[in-house]
């Protein structure tokens, strides 16, 4: 008999599939999808989260499905790691599904049916990726996930840019999948048994283990969006409809993290510190690259996508440190690193989902996605503004919200460096902490820009609004979308204020993978105090933090209003007495990034066009491009063209040559035989 959590999880998956199928049913499908499908899907997500959470506290359970390869049916397994990611998927997708119900309300039946199908297949396949317990089911679910999301990305396929994005996305995803497949091939070792149990029992030479690690790391990294394989992410995530962007950025790229942890820690095993260093280097590059390019964006969704790249980098920092520590035989610190990474995975899922839903609300309510067209939205969309502020503070790693907790934990991991034996590694580890610090500060800058430009200040006149037929101008978005955002905002707060609960959960997950959890007095320190190692070394109590700040603010306000006569006069802004302010005098998003361009100039590939002195309508155009295109992608494409041009010489149309080919082949083989 299948234990409850696993059965429940499978039931949720089935429900999602069924919902997807229903949305396809013509006529009835459309209204069904419009009314019932998404809320029901949200409920299933909620249930899934509950089951996942429960599974963390129960022994691993596995089951076998009837489908699958000959002699090897689909195996599913629910252990703490899978449970945690199911929880993530369920909790976040619940909010997204609910707001999707509002977002897609106005779609035409045809489109809605397809979106419904693809959306739920997407969700279900993600759940299956997490549940899979054999290489085949994993790959099937993995690629189904890629396909479903591809079709969602190309929902508006009339725009060639979106088609290009979809193509790039699916291509890189497929290459990554092939790499993963080969990694499984190495682990499989021709034994004909593809279950994870069998794969993890493979005995590999160090070289092969390293090859397997590299294949897995880059295979999953391609999906996670780490450099240099990130190119698809800033293209695809903005292209998709906003709830889908939220799902992709929030959850899908996390399945790649799941895959990395599963394969590297669980299947390959025997983690080596060199691997950790590789991960760290790539991670540091990803982090800085992501945030620096995010600062240059003025398309809101694109900007958020680049921040996903950055946050993947942060997660990988934690992961890499954990691998280094484990490699040097410090499982406890390793567990801490893993916990930090997983915690940030969850946090990023929550606040990035929130931010994308916010961006979607702006797009939906105003038809705006370019920051330079926005401004003063806080006055017309107060609710959205509030939730977005929470998300912005969270991603900027500001206490007492959740982003800070996980980055704080990551810092704590880096501060364990002195216990390492290897002097070089010991001294470079803090540098990665420095990277993290820099990235955090830059993120804060970036979101001051986003929030300040989009929600604060005065409305700018839109230059290129997106023609969104459902854009009802004026007022905030509908209750569904608001609820979705509120849900995630609450998540940001709860995860930020009560990290200890999550820590104990993650401790079980880490223990199930690394064998040892955190130190006892780390866990004994009670719900109030977040203690990674020992209270003497470090502790943080967001509750007290929050209470004190709120208390102090209230106290001050009280005192001030007690002793202050409280007369307030409204008038024009003063602005050093500068006459007639117009909205056009406000900073634009590009202007806000200008100092960064100045400081980090060499990193960017800038194409500037300055207006001439006698220019009737002067226009300053700045285009920032990603150097990776010119360093990696285009050369590869050119190489492929070159080769195929050479190959084409085989087919020059002259039959005598063709005969000659087969003649020579024959002769050659005969010589070879004789």
């Amino acid at each position, binding site marked *: 008999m299948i234990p409850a959590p696993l059965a429940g999880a499978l039931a949720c998956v089935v429900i999602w599939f069924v919902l997807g199928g229903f949305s396809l049913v013509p006529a009835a499908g459309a209204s069904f999808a419009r009314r019932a499908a998404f809320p029901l899907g949200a409920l299933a997500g909620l249930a899934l989260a509950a089951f996942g959470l429960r599974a963390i506290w129960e022994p691993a359970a596995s089951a076998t499905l009837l489908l699958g390869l000959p002699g090897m049916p689909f195996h599913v397994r629910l252990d703490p790691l899978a449970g945690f990611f199911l929880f993530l998927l369920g909790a976040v997708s619940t909010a997204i599904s609910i707001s999707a119900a509002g977002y897609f309300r106005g779609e035409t039946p045809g489109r809605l049916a397809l979106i419904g199908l693809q959306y739920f297949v997407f969700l279900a396949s993600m759940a299956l990726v997490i549940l899979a317990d054999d290489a085949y089911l994993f790959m099937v679910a993995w690629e189904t996930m890629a396909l479903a999301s591809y079709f969602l990305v190309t929902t508006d396929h009339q725009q060639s840019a979106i088609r290009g994005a979809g193509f790039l996305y699916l291509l890189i995803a497929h290459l990554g999948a092939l790499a993963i497949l080969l990694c499984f091939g190495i682990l499989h070792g021709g034994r004909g048994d593809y279950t994870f149990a069998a794969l993890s029992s493979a005995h590999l030479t160090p070289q092969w283990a390293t090859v397997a690690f590299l294949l897995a790391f880059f295979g999953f990294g391609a999906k996670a969006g780490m450099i240099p394989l990130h190119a698809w992410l800033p293209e695809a995530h903005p292209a998709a409809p906003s709830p889908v962007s939220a799902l992709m950025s929030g959850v899908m790229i996390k399945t790649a993290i799941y895959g990395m942890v599963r394969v590297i820690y669980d299947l390959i095993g025997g983690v080596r510190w060199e691997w950790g260093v590789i991960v760290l280097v790539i991670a540091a590059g990803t982090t800085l690259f992501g945030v620096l390019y995010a600062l240059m964006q003025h398309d809101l969704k694109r900007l958020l996508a680049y921040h996903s790249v950055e946050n993947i980098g942060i997660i990988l920092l934690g992961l890499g440190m954990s691998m280094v520590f484990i490699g040097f035989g410090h499982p406890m610190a390793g567990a801490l690193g893993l916990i930090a990474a997983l915690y940030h995975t969850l946090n990023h899922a929550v606040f990035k989902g929130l931010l994308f839903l916010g961006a979607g609300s702006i797009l939906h309510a105003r038809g705006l996605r370019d920051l330079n067209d926005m401004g003063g939205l806080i006055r017309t969309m107060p609710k959205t503004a509030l939730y977005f502020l929470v998300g912005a503070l969270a991603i900027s790693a500001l206490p007492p919200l959740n982003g800070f907790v996980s980055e704080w934990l990551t810092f704590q991991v880096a501060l364990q460096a002195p216990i390492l034996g290897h002097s070089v590694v010991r001294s470079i580890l803090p540098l990665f902490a420095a990277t993290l610090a820099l990235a955090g500060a830059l993120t804060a800058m970036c979101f001051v820009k986003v929030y300040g430009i989009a929600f604060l200040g005065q409305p700018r006149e839109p230059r290129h609004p997106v023609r969104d037929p459902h854009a009802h101008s004026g007022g905030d978005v509908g209750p569904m979308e608001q609820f979705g955002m509120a849900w995630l905002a609450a998540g940001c707060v709860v995860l930020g204020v009560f990290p200890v609960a999550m820590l104990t959960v993650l401790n079980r997950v880490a223990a199930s993978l690394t064998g040892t959890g955190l130190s006892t007095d780390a866990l004994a320190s009670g719900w109030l105090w977040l203690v990674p190692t020992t209270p003497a070394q470090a502790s943080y109590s967001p509750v007290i933090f929050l209470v004190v700040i709120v208390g102090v603010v209230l106290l001050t306000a009280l005192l001030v209003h007690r002793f202050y006569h409280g007369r307030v006069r409204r008038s024009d802004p003063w602005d050093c007495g500068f006459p007639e302010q117009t909205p056009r005098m406000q900073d634009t998003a590009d202007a806000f990034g200008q100092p960064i361009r100045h400081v980090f100039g060499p990193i960017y590939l800038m194409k500037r066009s300055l207006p001439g002195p006698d220019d009737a309508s002067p226009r300053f155009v700045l285009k920032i491009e990603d150097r990776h295109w010119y360093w990696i992608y285009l050369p590869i494409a050119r190489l492929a063209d070159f080769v195929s041009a050479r190959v*084409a*010489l*085989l*087919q*020059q*149309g*002259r*039959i*005598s040559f063709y*005969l*000659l080919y087969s*003649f020579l082949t*024959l*002769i050659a083989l*005969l010589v070879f035989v*004789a």
Partner: protein
Amino acid sequence: MGTSLAGQMVNLLAAFLLLVAFAMLSQRRVLSLVRLFAWQGAALAASTLLVAYSTGQNHLYYSAALAVALKVILIPWVLHRLIDRLDVRWDIETPINIPTTMLVGIALVIFAFALATPISEMSSTITRGTLGIALACVLLSFLMMIVRRKAIPQVIGFLAMENGLFFAATSATHGMPLVVELGVALDVLVGTFIFGIFFFHIREQFDSLDIRHMEKLKED
């Protein structure tokens, strides 16, 4: 006793086949090609008869008859008709520089022998060397097809190759089962007719049988 005599005869005919193959390689005029083809067929039939007689494999008589009917009479006749109808009777072509082709051909023959010797060592049949000659004939006709620029000579090359195979079948291994022989013969016949149809189509499309017109389909 007869074996040695018959064997020598067969070897003689084999040598003659080889000669004809070389002649075809160098022959420019289409009509002469057809004639050579007919001679090849005749030699084939004769050798088959000899083998049949000397080994008493009765079904080889049918094969021989088949060969005469098909390769000496029918196909040459068809080719003649075609040549008349297409009126390419006097049409000659210049294959790429004949001496080199000849040298390559000789190299091929040597190669074929080298390849065939170890096999013919273990052959139980009376006619050992013939396998090598058959292979040589096949390769030579292959070479001929490569160097020819016109459709009809190419097809004749194809048929000549089939002759070589037939020779291999009959002389090296006392003939394949009759059903197979018949099937092969049928294929050859049908093939010839289809080739005939093609000649006309090609003619009407490209108003020439020069296959150099047919190099449009290619990668660019």
